[in-house]
């Protein structure tokens, strides 16, 4: 029993060890995966599943190297022998089979088992590695947390809107601030429509939304008497002192325009600081369906589905469909307007909406011949509206199509053809109406008859196109006559298909021929439906065929209005005499001044600056030129401060200081002016002769002389 006890103990120890080994390997793998995975995920922007993959790879390889499950009892024994001297190097005896032991070993076994009982179940050596691994895991988590933080910063500098101002502050060069200013705190409160929170910054350069309220709080290191903010070199805002030391000054302004400003403290002006305004764009509406012009033929379902997407920078407040139904024609046209809501609610002010609407045309009191005009108007949080183009849906007017007006009065037409197609339509409609009152057989017969009519009509038109005649007059009597024996022409006529006769080909214009072909196709389709006893389905094709035929007929007409002109009576004696003596010759003279060059001052200032590079001294005229250039540049800077503001401050620097001019200042100004100047187009000009004492002139003269 005791023997089993010892063996059990050893087995238990074995399993504990294996367990701890497995645990520590797993922990190692977790630590490695946490660090590597967060590196890959946050810095290299790999996908998130790379972390478990790394874990599986690392743990797999650790297991493969260590193979903890292969730890044998022998190894446990040798471990016990080393770690616990009281076992007297004899723990191996326990795992040996009892019957193989000699007397001495049996005695020793008893001692050993006694000692083994006192060996703890979890020796410290077992947990040592696991503890290390645990510590490593904690460290790894701390490290990956740090990586995730820096990774976020990386992200944010990439241009996320939320942290743009912060990121901007970190990346852009330090601002030049007046010496009196200790610190500045600018609070930007975006307008309510943006739905954004207010933010703080400690830089003068402002990037804000249109209509944002800006609060400046400037701390000075000494007490000052007065301070302003000067916007675009025009508008002045007083800073108000808020404490007795006169070191805390505040001002407030709502910014609607891009531009720049300066801080003025006790008469000294600061550098220019730019103000960039993000304008709120109007909502963008995109209609996916229907198309701009939609035509609903008779017989088609009178329903149109509208689907559109609406987008806006900050949020959409509302969207409506403005629809107008036009009824009637000519002078009797009537309009009726509808405002139709989308089924979607816009209360959430989302940035994007997908909207749908189904127009049920009869519900809008639309009848054949009427037209529906509609557009979508959307409004954003800032109450900016935008609307789409007008879309048109028209329903075919069957009544007009069936009217005989144009046909009777037309000159060169063959009315019976057209009446036939119209008749087929009328018959089809009557058949549909009577469908319930007649028997199935009668219905089918009539339907088939209509199909036959349609076929005949089609064949009649087919002749115009030189199509095959299907009348089928084979083996005619003519051919059987004796005098026609071996008449090749006649035999060929009888047994060949004759398409596209030369005569027929020139009968109609290609365009008309094409339309006629289209008509025949529609007739084909109508006949097909009729033959299948589906007069309901045949109707659209019949209508279409009729419409095409009518179009054809309209095309052949032209209208010339009657004109009335009474020429004055001719003087016969003057006629054909060619006498122009009393006609005076026109002589005009004008002076056209070339348009004033708006950029002349820039061109002049470039000349001044180029000179300044070599002789660093400005005379009075140069200073005036540069001052004027500065005025023009600052006007440009208020529109685009990012481009022109540095040049304005550089010009200011050159004009105001007597010290040696900085070449980088000149470079900045030149760059801005080059950008401001428009491209020059070439002009006709005169080149100069060389000063040669008339030598070349003499040469030509002598040459002429020689040639003579």
């Amino acid at each position, binding site marked *: 029993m005791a023997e089993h006890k010892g063996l059990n103990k050893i087995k238990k120890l074995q399993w504990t060890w294996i367990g701890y080994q497995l645990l520590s390997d797993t922990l190692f793998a977790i630590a490695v995966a946490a660090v590597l995975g967060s590196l890959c995920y946050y810095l290299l922007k790999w996908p998130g599943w790379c972390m478990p993959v790394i874990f599986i790879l690392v743990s797999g390889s650790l297991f493969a190297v260590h193979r903890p499950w292969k730890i044998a009892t022998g190894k446990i024994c040798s471990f016990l022998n080393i770690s616990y001297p009281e076992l007297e190097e004899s723990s191996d005896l326990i795992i040996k089979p009892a019957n193989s032991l000699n007397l001495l070993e049996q005695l020793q076994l008893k001692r050993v088992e006694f000692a083994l009982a006192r060996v703890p179940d979890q020796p410290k050596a077992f947990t040592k590695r696991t503890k290390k691994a645990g510590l490593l895991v904690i460290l790894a988590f701390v490290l990956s947390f740090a990586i995730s933080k820096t990774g976020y910063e990386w992200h944010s500098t990439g241009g996320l809107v939320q942290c743009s101002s912060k990121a901007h502050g970190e990346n852009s060069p330090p601002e030049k601030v007046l010496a009196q200013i200790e610190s500045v705190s600018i609070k930007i409160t975006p307008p309510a429509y943006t739905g954004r929170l207010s933010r703080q910054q400690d830089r003068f350069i402002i990037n804000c939304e249109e209509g944002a309220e800006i609060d400046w709080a400037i701390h000075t290191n000494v007490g000052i008497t007065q301070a302003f903010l000067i916007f675009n070199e025009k508008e002045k805002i007083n800073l108000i002192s808020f404490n007795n030391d006169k070191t805390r000054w505040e001002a407030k302004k709502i910014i609607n325009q891009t531009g720049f400003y300066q801080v003025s403290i006790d008469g000294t002006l600061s550098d220019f600081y730019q103000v960039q305004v993000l304008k709120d764009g109007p909502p963008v509406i995109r209609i996916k369906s229907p198309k701009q012009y939609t035509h609903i033929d008779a017989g088609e379902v009178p329903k149109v589905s509208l689907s559109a997407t609406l987008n806006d920078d900050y949020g959409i407040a509302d969207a409506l469909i403005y629809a107008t139904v036009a009824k009637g024609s000519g002078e009797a046209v009537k309009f009726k307007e509808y405002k139709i809501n989308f089924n979607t609610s816009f209360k959430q002010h989302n940035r994007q909406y997908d909207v749908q609407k189904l127009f049920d045309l009869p519900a809008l009191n639309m009848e054949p011949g009427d037209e529906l005009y509609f557009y979508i108007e959307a409004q954003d949080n800032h109450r900016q509206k935008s609307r789409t183009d007008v879309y048109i849906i028209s329903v075919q007017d069957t009544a007009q199509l069936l009217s005989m007006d144009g046909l009777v009065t037309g000159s060169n037409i063959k009315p019976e053809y057209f009446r036939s197609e119209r008749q087929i339509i009328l018959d089809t409609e009557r058949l549909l109406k009577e469908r319930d009152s007649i028997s199935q057989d009668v219905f089918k017969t009539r339907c088939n008859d209509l199909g036959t009519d349609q076929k005949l009509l089609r064949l009649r038109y087919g002749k115009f196109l030189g199509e095959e005649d299907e009348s089928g007059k084979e083996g005619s009597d003519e051919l059987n006559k004796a005098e026609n024996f071996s008449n090749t022409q006649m035999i060929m006529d009888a047994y060949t298909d004759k398409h596209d006769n030369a005569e027929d080909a020139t009968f109609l214009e290609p365009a008309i021929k094409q339309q006629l072909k289209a008509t025949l196709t529609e007739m084909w389709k109508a006949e097909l439906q009729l033959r299948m006893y589906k007069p309901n389905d045949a109707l659209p094709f019949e209508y279409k065929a009729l419409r095409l035929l009518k179009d054809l007929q309209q095309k052949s007409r032209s209208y010339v209005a009657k004109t009335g002109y009474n020429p004055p009576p001719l003087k016969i004696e003057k006629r054909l005499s*060619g006498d*122009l003596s009393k*006609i005076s*010759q*026109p*002589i*005009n*003279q*004008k*002076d*056209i*001044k*070339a*348009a004033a060059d708006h950029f002349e001052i*820039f*061109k002049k200032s*470039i*000349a001044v600056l*180029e*000179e300044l*590079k*070599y*002789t660093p001294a400005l005379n009075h005229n140069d200073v005036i030129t540069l001052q004027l250039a500065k005025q023009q540049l600052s006007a440009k800077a208020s529109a685009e401060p990012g481009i022109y503001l540095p040049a304005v401050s550089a010009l200011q620097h050159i004009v105001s200081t007597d010290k040696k001019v900085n070449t980088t200042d000149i*470079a*900045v100004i*030149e*760059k801005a*002016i*080059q*950008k401001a*100047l*428009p*491209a*020059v*187009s*070439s*002009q*006709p*000009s*005169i*080149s*100069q*002769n*060389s*000063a*040669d*004492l008339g*030598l*070349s*002139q003499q040469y*030509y*003269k002598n040459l*002429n002389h020689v040639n003579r």
Partner: protein
Amino acid sequence: MTWNLTVIIICILLFVITAWLEYRRSNGSRLILRIIVSLIAIAALACLALPVTYKGKNSINGGADAALLTPGYHIDSLSHAGAKLIFTTDKDVLKTYPKATFLNTLQDLNAIYPAIKQLHILGYGLDDDDLKQLDKIPVVFHDPPAPGGILAVNWQKQLKAGELFQVQGKFNNTSSKPVRLLFKGLNTPLDSVNIPTRKITDFELTTVPKTPGNITYTLLAIDGKDTIENESVPVIIERAQQVKVLILASSPGFETRFLKNWLSQNGCAVAVRETISKDKISEDFINTEKQSLAHLSAALLNKFDVVIGDLSALKALNSSESSALRQQVSQSGLGVIIRSDSLTKETSWLQNNFKVTTYASKTQLTVPLAIQDQKFKNAPLNIDPSYISNNNNIQNLVLDLQNHILASSAIYGTGKLVYTTLHNTYTWQLAGNNKDYTALWSILISKAARKSPPEQSFAVASAVPASQLPVQLQIQSGSAPVQLSVNNIPVSAVQNAIIPYEWKFDYWPENAGWQQIILNKKVINSWYLYQKDNWAPLKYASRREKTQHYLDKRAKSLSVTKQIQNLTSIAVPKMYFYSVLIAACAFLWIERKLHP
């Protein structure tokens, strides 16, 4: 001399004593042989002490070689040349190799070290002035590989506003990385080109300058991130001088009307004579005073720079008008732009160089045109399929894509004739395409326009004028340029003996930048003085070429004197005399030992 004499006397005494001792010897055999051998031994001894020389050709390792270091030399080539004396005339080179002896001029070399056998020139070589001082020193030029960088460059020194500014040249890229040439003006990159590695490549950079005046552009060569060259490209941009135009038309038309409007908008003086009916003309004057255009006289034509007319209007001129026009063109340089038409069959002197082929079968074509000096293709234009046939006397101005000529110019006397078959250019204006219209008519009018009467023209004769070096300047003027000054420093010009209107003078400039030429208290022109290190590869390349050229030319004339120079006395190596002495002494010793 005394040394030689002493040695000879001692040797003679020594021989006498030795011969006497030999004679006195008891064993008297081989007496003659012994005396001869001792004579040889003593003679050899004397030769050891005496400087024995012979006249012969100089061998290279025998002479004292010198090396002259010039910019761009390589330190390895110095050891290869194996010269002991090392000189330089360049202070920058001296800094890189302080062991070299500095010479103010090469003439010093002749004076101080006349014994130089051969002068090795290392580096890119010498200037013209230095080369002349080389005199008769035998020279070996170790031709270095071409310097890396811009080897050649050219651009227009003066431009009219709106003209294309082109910088063309050759770049030698010796590095293993491609080099980017960046052309900057007013601190803005305007054009760039990439130069492939290890290759000499032609390049062209262009821009249309936006501002008039003296502008310095910059040409940068950038190798990855390093700027390897930063050169100034100065140019003077003048405002366009307005042209006075006379338009003759046989009938009113859109082409004439649009041309008139466009010219007047550009501030040109325009007079138009249109035939509106039989013997009836309409006259328009814009930016010019009224005058009768009914009869074209030489005096009237003299007031205009260009006459634009359709061919039938020009043919319809009566004989006196026609001859006045012809005389103005051939003698006074008036330009005529002829717009072809096919109304009359008879030929005129205006058509001599322009043979027009019309393809009647073809309808109007819509093609883009290629205009001279224009980099980009312009918008398509409707043209009639009638083309001018090419010949050697005409310069083609406008072509279509198949290189059919649509406008070209030819010289007639001192004037120019421009012939065009384009009739619908106004459609460009109608389409709002002012750019192409302007480009086309600008080139036609500028080519034809009468050249303005000359005042002075000015040029810098030195290739790359730099400070602290003399610059050669040149003025062409009808009268002697008195009261001439540069930057208010009076200078006097010398007249060219052969070309009477050319005047030359030298100037030693101080500061880099624009220098003003002032004549009669009026600034007539400017020129640019480069920084000293500007265009270094260019200068080196030209030095290398000049040195090579100079030495090639000199080699022929020097070949005779070189031989005489080389026939000098050469010392006989002492080794021979030692061996003779030892052999003789050995004989005497062995002879005594064998026969005591």
